[in-house]
C-alpha cells in the first residue's frame, strides 16, 4: 500500500510573466513503513515539495494521493483535517508553542481531532515516555535542551498515529551527538512500522534511510535504494 503517490506534480509561483517553476513534474512513490530521505541543495524545490507532501500547500498541477486519498484539489479545512489525521510534522526549529507546557504541546493535535481531555492526557504522557522524556510534562519548552525539545516535537507528531512522519532537517539545529540520538529515535520509530520522510541536505543523515530521493531544479535527479539500515 502506497502512503505517497504523486504523478507529474508541478508547482509554479508568481504570475505568467515572471513565473518560478519550483517543481517541474515529480513522480514519487513511498510505500507504507518505508524510511525515505529527500535530499537536494537549497533552491532545488525541497521545501516546496515538503509543503505539498505535508498538505500545507497545494500543487499547481499533477496529482497527489496521500494514504489512498486524492488531496491535490482539497480546500483549507479539509487539508487541515488531513494534516491533523495523517501527517506528523517535525521541524528544524521544533515549532513548539513557547508558552504552553510540554504536555499541552503534545496534546494539541489531539485537541483538534476532538479527543476527550482525559484520553488526550494519557496518550500525551505515554508518548513522552516513548520518546524518552517522561518527567518533563509540566515544564515549558524554554526549560528543555534542543534535543529534548525535538523529542517533544516528535511525540507531538506521533499524537494522532499519523500515516506519515514528515521531518524537515530535524537535526539541523542540534549538535552532532544529540543529532545522532534524535536520528536513532527516528530509526526506532521506523522499526516500529512508521513511515518516515526525512528532508535533509546532509548526505550522512540521508545515508541512514533505506532509500534516498534527490531533488535538483524541481525534478527528481536520482533514487537510490539501500538494503540494510545502519
Amino acid at each position, binding site marked *: 500500500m502506497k502512503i505517497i503517490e504523486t504523478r507529474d506534480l508541478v508547482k509554479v509561483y508568481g504570475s505568467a510573466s515572471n513565473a518560478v517553476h519550483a517543481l517541474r513534474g515529480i513522480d514519487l512513490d513511498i510505500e507504507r513503513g518505508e524510511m525515505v530521505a529527500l535530499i537536494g541543495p537549497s533552491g532545488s524545490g525541497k521545501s516546496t515539495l515538503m509543503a505539498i507532501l505535508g498538505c500545507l*500547500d497545494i500543487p499547481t498541477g499533477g496529482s497527489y494521493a496521500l494514504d489512498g486519498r486524492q488531496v491535490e484539489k482539497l480546500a483549507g479545512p479539509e487539508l487541515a483535517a488531513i494534516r*491533523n489525521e495523517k501527517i506528523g*510534522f517535525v521541524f528544524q526549529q521544533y515549532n*513548539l*508553542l513557547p*508558552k504552553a507546557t510540554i504536555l499541552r504541546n503534545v496534546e494539541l493535535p489531539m485537541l*483538534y481531532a476532538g479527543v476527550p481531555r482525559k484520553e488526550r492526557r494519557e496518550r500525551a504522557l505515554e508518548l513522552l515516555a516513548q520518546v524518552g522524556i517522561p518527567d518533563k510534562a509540566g515544564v515549558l519548552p524554554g526549560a528543555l535542551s534542543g534535543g529534548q525539545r525535538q523529542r517533544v516535537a516528535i511525540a507531538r507528531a506521533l499524537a494522532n498515529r499519523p500515516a506519515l512522519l514528515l521531518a524537515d532537517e530535524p537535526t539541523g539545529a542540534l549538535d552532532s551527538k544529540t543529532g545522532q540520538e534524535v536520528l536513532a529515535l527516528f530509526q526506532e520509530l521506523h522499526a516500529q512500522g512508521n513511515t518516515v520522510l526525512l528532508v535533509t541536505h546532509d548526505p550522512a543523515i540521508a545515508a541512514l534511510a533505506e532509500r534516498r530521493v534527490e531533488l535538483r531544479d524541481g525534478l527528481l535527479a536520482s533514487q537510490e535504494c539501500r538494503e540494510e539500515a545502519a
Partner: protein
Amino acid sequence: MKIVRIKTSGAFRERLFESWVELRENPGRSFLQALGVMLGVASVLGGFAISDSQRNQSERLFARIGGTDKLNILPTDTAYQETPSALQNANLGLREEDATEGGRLPSARAVNATSVVREARARVRSEFADQERDVSGIGADYVAMNGYEIEQGRGFSAHDLETGAPVAVLGSQAASVLFPTGEIVGKPLRIGETPVRVIGVFAEKTFRFHEGQENMFAWRNRIVAVPSLLVAGRMEGDDYHRLDRVTFRVPDLAAMTDFSKELSSLVTANHRLQDDFRLDDVAKRMERQMSQADVYNIIFMLSGVLALLGGGMVNVNIQLASLKERVREVGIKMALGAPGREIFKALMTEALLLTLLGSFVGFLVGVVFSWVITHSIGIPLMLSPLSFVWATALALVFGFLFALYPATKASRLSPMEALRYE
C-alpha cells in the same frame, strides 16, 4: 473515511477552557487586552453609579425642601397686584373650603396630607426684641407636612386651629432671637396689634446637600407660626379667611395627574369660573424629571461608549503588535491540523472570555471609583443592577466587534506562510 474530525457539539465548553489556558499562558498580553475593557466597563459603571447617586440625592432633596410629591394651589397675581375685574372682585379667592372640598374628591384617596398657609408681614415684639418678621398663619397638616417637630411646650391643637386661638409656636432661630435667655414657653408676644402666647418651640431643622455646606433649612427655623384663622381674621380682618396657599401631598406622581384635573375643575367651579388661581403643572414636572434622567444617562452612556471604543482600539493594536508572535503560533496550530474556522472561533472565544474577565475587574474598579467620587462630594453611593447589565452588554458588543478583525485576519493566514513568518 473520517476526514473532518473536529467536534462541533459541546465544543464550546472545551473551547472556553482552551481560551482560559491561552490567557493564562500569555498573562502580559491578556492583561493589556483586558485593560481597555476594564476601563470601559469601569467608566460606564462609574458614570451610571455617579449619575444614579446624584439623582437619588436630588430626589431626596426635592422631597425634603419642595417635594415633587406636593401639589400647590396659589392665587394668581391678578388678585394681589392688578386691577381685578368685577367678577374677580366678587370672588372669595382661595379659601379653606377649597382645601376641605379638595380633600373629599374621589381621586383624593391618593392625598396623604393637606396644609394651608396665610402669610403676613408684621412687627413682632417680645420683652427682648422688636422686629419686622414674616408670620405664617398655618392650618391642617402644615406642621407634619413640613417636618417640624416640637422641642419645647406643645404644638397647635385642633381647637387652636379651628378657633384661631392667639397662640404661637416659634422656629428655633425665631425663639433664640425673640427670647435670648430664660423661659420661652408661656411668654407673651405681640404680633402687630394682636397679643399671643408662645406655646411651643420647634426643633432646629437642618439639611445639607453636601457635607460642610450651609444649612439649606435655615429659613425654616425663622418661622413664627400662628393659626391661619388668627392671621386672616383677627390680624387682617378678612371675613372670608382667604389663604395664600393650599398644598396637597400626593406620593404617587401618576395619581397626582388625575387628582390635579379633578381639583382644577372643583376650584374653577368654586371660583365662579374665574381664572384667579394657579395649580402646579404636574405633566411638566414629570416631563422635567424624566428628561433630566435621560440627559444624565445619555451623557454617561456616551462617555462609557467612548471609553470602550478607546479600549477596543487599544485591544486591536495590541493584537496587531503581538501579531508576529501570534502568526507563528497560528502557523504551528494550522500545521497540527487546526482549520481556519477553529482559529477564528478560538480567538473569538478568547476575546469573549477576556471581555467577561475584564468586565468583572471593571466592576470592582468602577465601584471603587464611584465610591471615591460620591464619598468626596458627600453623597451616598447608589448602584443599580441595571448599570451592571448595561456595562457588560456594551463591553460584550465592543469586545465582539473589535475581535472580529484580528480573528478574521488570523484565520485566513496560509499555514505555510505563517510557519515561515519571522
